[in-house]
Structures are given as structure tokens and as C-alpha cells.
């Protein structure tokens, strides 16, 4: 048994905003934006946040695996929706992990993802590391242009790893290139040239050097160099200083995704693993109040990895959104007239939410132990009219079952943050059905028989009390799984 990366997955939201849409809107104010108006950035649907993306990336990583062996979950982000609620606990529930799982949220730095990964690699438990970020940015800011939303998940532990850790190194320095306090919604950033010269260039190369020395690997032998940096030429300058070949620089996904903050180092690692070959050496660096460097070597197991969407598959699952207005609305950057129907109180009975956690968070239904009928939700009496047995329902997970649309509508009357509200009855191929919200779907693409998959999403946001409630929704099966 060898320790290392056992599996990986990623999630990039479906919607992509061409940067031109930003520049077209704000170019009058900040003409410099026009020079950045190339490519597109991924952004969350209104019902997504760091938690929902983490769940989807984790599901992507865990495809075909027994989740019972996951003993620990580390969730890294700087955009957790709650200040006091365990987000990794929500993720663990959505993944139906054993309730004995160890969970920790890792926050407050752009290298939260790499630090969580280092911690996991040093532990004896099989650990799922997820990193997710829903970037916040002021309208017309450089961050709005460079950032994107996304998540990655890396499973580490003993087994047949796809990659093993050769060495790691860290450096801590309270170098404040930007910050965001509890009182502020958005980043405050210092001059870019100073960040490059006094930050990246001073902190990262020595850290890489220590890592490579520990591994007894020369810089020129690094095959892939994954270091998020949105400032121009920083990654190549760091590589050069560390003796890493320019060809090793990995695609920063600026053109088609944007920088996913604390998740980005792991997103780049996932994207690199997707195309890596046995023997490749992958150097991953996280920068933020210091730096983390991790050097991996890819094993022959990479050729046998489970099929999943990963970064490439999620990038291919794409919807261009040319309306900058929709981006503003989804990110709560504009006050829309939402109508009186939106005033309905969406309070949550926390006691009911806890009591119904299997249904609501884990999407577990029932299977009758007498007649085998599947049903959602689980009830005391079997729904099969020829059975109706009492107390025979065994828990049965519905989240990963294939489904198809049975009936649907696109509702323009009811309040929805992204009208029309699409919902309908989906039928699971193995049995059972549910009337449920749809998401990531175009109203004109709705049809009976459309294959659907379940996704973990925000059901309602209670702005009055600052609470948000999660549930599952059905989305079209899209994107081609890749892998062995």
C-alpha cells in the first residue's frame, strides 16, 4: 500500500460570461478593461455557492468509489457562506459520508487549498480535500475580470495512488497583497508590481527550491508547474527563478474559466492530472501570506483512473451568458425589483431540517424490503398499491441514480431568481420519481424523456435571517466523461 492521490475531480459552473460583456458595460469608466476583454469567466448560477460546488467536485472525484473509506474531509475556501456553521459538515451530509468522518473547514488564505492538501497528505486517514470558491468582486474591478468560480476535490490515502508526493515545503509571511475583512464584502488590493517583486518573486522561488532539494529533483525535471497567478508573467518569472522550464507552465485557465481563488491550485492540479503521463513530475504552488509547494510524481495508475468530467469535462459543459445583468443579479451586485411574490417568508424550521436531513441533505429515499419498490421520500407505508407494507422501507440513495423528465413546465408566474422557473416530474430509471426544481437548463430545451442527473444546490435564501437552505435539483445530463 502506497500513500498518494487516489482520485480527483472538479467542478466548473455551467455559465460563462465573456469578458467583453464586462468591458462593454464599464469601458466608459475604466477604459483599461477593454484590453482585458478576451475569453470568458465561469460564474455560479444563483443557486450555487462554495458549498454546492464543493459537493459536485467531490462527487466527481468519488465516482465509482466506496465512500465508506473516507475518514476525513477538509474543505478549503475563503468564500464560505457562514461564519459559524461547519461547511464540511454540509458537504459530508450531501455526500452521505459516514457520520464518524472528521471534518474541518480551512479558510482565510488563497493557499487554503494547498495547505489542506499538505495536511491531508501527512495524515494516516483517507482524506477528501475539497476546495471551492465563489469569487466576489466589485463591478468594473480587475478581480471581476480575472476571477472565476469553481472547485476541485482530491482524495488522498493509502492504496493505488495516481500520483505520490515526493516532497513539500511551506513558508509563512504576513505579506498582505490584498485582504478582505468581516466588515467588507470585497478585496482591497495593493500595487501589482509590488506584489510581483516583493511577494511572489521573494517568497515562492526559495520555497520551491527547498521542496525540490528535499525531493532531490532538479527544476528542469518538473513536467508540470501549477501556480495560480493572475498578474501578467508572474508564473513564468517564478518558474525561471526556480529553474523550471517555461514549457512546464500549465494553462492557468484564464481564457475559459478565470482564477478560482483558494480552489485554483487544486483546480490546476486536477486539470494537469487529467492529461499527465506516468513519471510526470507535477509541482503545485499556492501563494497567500506565504507559500506552499508540493511535488508529485504520476504513477502508471493514472491510466486506469475512473471516468469523470473533471476540469475538461466541466469546461465543455458550458453555456455562454452574454447578459452582464444576469451576472450582476446572480452575484447580488444590483438591486432588482423582484416583485411582491418574492416577499414570501422563506424561513427554515431548523428542527425539521435536522429531522429530515436524510431526505433533504442526503437525498435518501426508501426501498421496500418486501416488494423492492423504490420511492422518494421514504415513508412508513410502501407506495406500491399491491404492497402497502408498513415499516419495510430501507434507506436508498437517489442522488446518483439516472433519471428522465416525465413532465415539465417553465413557470413565469411563480417567483424565481432566474425566471422562468423550470421544474417537473422526473422518473428514476431504477424506479421512483419526484417533482423537483430543475437547474442549469434552458426552458426551450425541456422535453419529456430528457436524461437528468441530480445536483446539490441552494433551495432558498432567507435574506431576512441570513440563512440558506440546500436541497437537490435535476439538471440535464451534459458533458462527456473522460478517463480510462
Amino acid at each position, binding site marked *: 500500500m502506497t500513500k498518494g492521490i487516489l482520485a480527483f475531480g472538479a467542478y466548473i459552473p455551467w455559465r460563462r460570461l465573456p469578458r467583453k460583456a464586462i468591458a462593454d458595460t464599464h469601458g466608459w469608466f475604466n477604459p483599461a478593461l477593454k484590453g482585458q476583454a478576451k475569453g470568458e469567466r465561469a460564474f455560479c448560477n444563483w443557486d450555487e455557492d462554495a458549498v454546492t460546488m464543493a459537493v459536485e467536485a467531490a462527487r466527481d472525484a468519488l465516482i465509482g468509489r466506496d465512500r465508506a473509506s473516507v475518514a476525513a474531509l477538509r474543505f478549503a475556501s475563503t468564500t464560505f457562506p457562514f461564519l459559524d456553521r461547519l461547511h464540511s459538515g454540509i458537504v459530508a451530509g450531501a455526500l452521505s459520508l459516514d457520520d464518524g468522518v472528521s471534518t474541518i473547514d480551512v479558510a482565510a488564505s488563497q493557499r487554503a487549498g494547498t495547505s489542506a492538501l499538505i495536511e491531508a497528505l501527512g495524515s494516516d486517514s483517507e482524506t477528501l480535500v475539497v476546495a471551492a470558491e465563489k469569487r466576489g468582486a466589485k463591478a468594473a474591478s480587475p478581480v471581476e475580470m480575472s476571477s472565476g468560480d469553481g472547485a476541485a476535490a482530491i482524495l488522498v490515502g493509502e492504496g493505488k495512488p495516481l500520483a505520490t508526493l515526493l516532497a513539500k515545503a511551506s513558508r509563512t509571511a504576513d505579506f498582505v497583497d490584498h485582504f478582505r475583512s468581516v466588515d467588507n464584502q470585497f478585496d482591497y488590493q495593493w500595487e501589482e508590481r509590488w506584489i510581483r517583486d516583493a511577494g511572489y518573486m521573494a517568497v515562492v522561488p526559495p520555497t520551491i527550491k527547498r521542496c525540490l532539494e528535499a525531493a532531490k529533483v532538479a527544476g528542469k525535471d518538473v513536467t508540470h508547474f501549477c501556480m495560480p497567478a493572475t498578474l501578467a508573467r508572474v508564473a513564468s518569472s517564478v518558474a525561471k527563478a526556480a529553474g523550471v522550464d517555461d514549457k512546464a507552465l500549465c494553462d492557468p485557465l484564464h481564457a475559459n474559466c478565470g482564477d478560482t481563488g483558494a480552489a485554483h491550485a487544486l483546480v490546476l492540479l486536477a486539470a494537469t492530472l487529467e492529461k499527465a503521463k506516468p513519471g510526470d513530475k507535477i509541482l503545485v504552488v499556492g501563494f497567500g501570506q506565504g507559500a506552499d509547494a508540493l511535488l508529485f510524481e504520476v504513477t502508471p495508475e493514472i491510466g486506469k483512473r475512473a471516468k469523470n468530467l473533471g476540469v475538461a469535462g466541466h469546461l465543455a459543459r458550458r453555456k455562454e451568458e452574454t447578459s452582464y445583468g444576469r451576472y450582476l443579479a446572480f452575484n447580488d451586485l444590483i438591486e432588482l425589483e423582484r416583485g411582491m411574490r418574492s416577499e414570501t417568508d422563506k424561513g427554515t424550521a431548523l428542527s425539521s431540517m435536522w429531522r429530515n436531513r436524510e431526505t433533504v441533505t442526503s437525498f435518501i429515499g426508501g426501498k421496500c424490503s418486501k416488494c423492492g419498490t423504490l420511492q422518494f421520500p421514504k415513508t412508513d407505508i410502501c407506495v406500491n398499491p399491491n404492497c402497502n407494507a408498513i415499516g419495510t422501507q430501507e434507506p436508498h440513495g437517489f442522488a446518483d441514480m439516472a433519471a428522465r423528465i416525465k413532465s*415539465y*413546465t417553465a413557470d413565469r408566474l411563480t417567483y424565481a431568481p432566474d425566471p422562468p422557473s423550470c421544474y417537473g416530474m422526473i422518473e428514476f430509471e431504477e424506479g421512483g420519481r419526484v417533482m423537483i426544481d430543475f437547474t442549469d437548463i434552458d426552458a426551450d430545451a425541456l422535453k419529456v424523456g430528457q436524461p437528468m442527473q441530480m445536483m446539490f444546490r441552494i433551495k432558498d435564501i432567507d435574506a431576512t435571517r441570513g440563512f440558506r437552505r440546500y436541497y437537490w435539483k435535476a439538471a440535464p445530463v451534459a458533458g462527456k466523461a473522460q478517463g480510462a
Partner: protein
Amino acid sequence: MAKGIKDKVVIIGMGCSKFGERWDKEADNLMVEAYTEAIADAGIDTKQIDAAWLATAIEEQHVGKSATPLAVALRLPFIPVTRVENYCASGTEAFRGAVYAVASGAADIALALGVEKLKDTGYGGLPQRGRGPLNDMTNPNASAPGSFAQLAAAYRAKHKVDAKDLKHGMAHISVKSHDNGAKNPKAHLRNKITVDTVLNAPTVAEPLGLYDCCGVSDGAACAIVATPEIARGLGKKDMVSVKALQIAVSNGLEAQHNSWDGSYFATTRIASKRAYTEAGIDKPRDQLSLIEVHDCFSVTELVTMEDLHISPEGGAIKDVLDGFYDADGKLPCQIDGGLKCFGHPIGASGLRMIYEMYLQMQGRAGERQRKQEPVFGLTHNLGGFPQRNVCAISIVGKYGA
């Protein structure tokens, strides 16, 4: 099987308020408006009423809970009064309470009244409201049109009907109801429309447009029932009696079991069969003279024609387009304008349907009177969602027929 209700109870008086946007009236004014007509029609005194039932569905929007709003509005003399709520089928549910009370002998004369005052929300359509902690966590935030619109998707898929053909059938239904409503002075909507009006209207919930949806109205309707003996004692002739009262309630099968295909109402199919048996009707298409169905949406009316075993499965569009259900057709449906145009003050609707039957059977329906007085009339009152609903059927007819 139980013997049933046939001819055990007759209607001795009915009343109905004008339906519509009654900005100047409270719910109690509407109740009194329906009641004064009914009590005058019955020719009795309030003191002769032994028991009463009140139907309201969205009571939090107007009168609040319990039966006291009815007792207070009518100054009922401390008699038993019960409030019932069973979604949009509440009106028929109240009628059932009153009829059963008389049939049992527990009451000689009983009253059923339904009322709804819906137009105090500030917006069009039904009030948006919570449905309980667990439902709010899992159910789509569905509107009524969004729920019923799904019948169209499933119906098209099942019967391989082109979307345009279905939409045309639905449009004919709405045009017909507007034609009928135009002749009804108490109707909410009295304008005539064309098929193009329906097809060009803004979409509410795909494929339902504005003219596929019934009016949301304020209004009240009232029935007073008694035994045939008591009615005779009051000098009643040409009496209208209750032939059948059936309710079927979803048990979760449609919502949870894959045996239902989403294109029809399982409840209506069952309740109507039971009602025909109770009324002694074996060929509804030939024996019924008039039907009032729960046309909350045009597509509901369309599939209901099949669920009532009148049109063959998959054959409703043809019957509709042939004019079978028009006011001058073989079996008129919604001769008073239906929910579509008479309006839909929820708790009142089931009683409003029976009111129309009662008028037609007595030749009192004015401009919209059917030439040949109907013998058997069926009312179909539905509440909830296609996948989980309450269906109430009444059959009334000439006493002794």
C-alpha cells in the same frame, strides 16, 4: 356496496354572489349576498336551518380559521357550524357535509356556503404562501399554472399529439367559456375572445398562456338542502335532488409510484365511476345533459373530458373542436362560463357549479338557458396538483329521474 345518496336529499334554495374583483366588499358581505338569495329562494327563515358548513381554502387571506365567520355573518342562532377545507374542492365538500347531515336524519334543513376573498394580495394570481416546513424544503416553488401545465407535456408525449394541435384544442375551450360567460351577468369575465387572442397571449407557464388560466375572483355561493318530504311541505315542485356525491383523494401514488403517467387525473377517473354507479348512470356521454368541470386551466378541462369517461382516451381534442361541449353542442360544458369566466373564488366554486345546474333544471338560467331543461347534471370540483389532488364529483338531477 352502500346504497348511496340518490334522491334522499333535495335542494330547496340556492344563491350566488356576483364573482369578480369585489374591491368594495368584505368576505362577510359576499356571504350575505349569496345567502339572501338562497334563503329567499328556499322560502324559509334562518331559524329553520339546523346545521351549516363553511368552505374556504385560503382563509388566511381573508376570514381566518374556524366556522365562526359564517355563523357571525349570517347571525346563525348558535347552531352547529363546521368549516371544511379540501383544496379547491372545498365547496363540494361543504355541500357533502350538509347533504349527509340531512340524509342521516340529524338535520332537517342544512346549509352549505363557500366563500373566498382573494383579491387582497396586491398582485394577480393566487396568493403565494408557505406549505409547511418540510414541503418548503423540498417542493418546487410551483404556481398553480405551473403544476397543471405539466399535464400538457405528459399528454403530448403519451398520445403523440403535436404541441400546436393541443394548444388549438385548449384555445377552443377558452373561447367557448368566454362566449358562455358573456351571457352570464354574475360572471367575472364577460368579454368574448378569439382563438388568436388565446394563442397570442403572454405565456404564464409553458404551454399555458394568460387565456388558458381561469380568473382569480372574490365571491360566495350557497345551497340549502332538505329531505324531499320537507321540501314538499314547503310547497316545492320540480325538485332538484342529489343523485351522487363522490370524492377521491390521492394517496401519494401519482407523486411517488411510476404507474401514473402524468397525463390524466387518477382521482377523477375513480370518483366519476363511483358517481355514475351511485346515480345509476351507465352511459355518461348519452345520459348526462350538462357538465360543469374544474377548468382552472384549459388543459385541465381537456383531460377531464376523458377522465369523466365522456370522451375516449386521446379523443378529447376532437370532441372539443367538434363543438361537442359547446353551449349548443350535445353536452355543454361550462355553460355559465366556468371557472375560466364565471370566476374562481375557491371555496365557492363547487357550490357555484351546482347553482348553475339548479338554475338550468328549473329553467331559470336566463340568456344562457339550455332549450331542453337538463335532467342529469354533473359537477366536477378539483383541488391540489395533478400529482396530488382531491376530486369531488356531484351529480344532481330532476327528483325521481
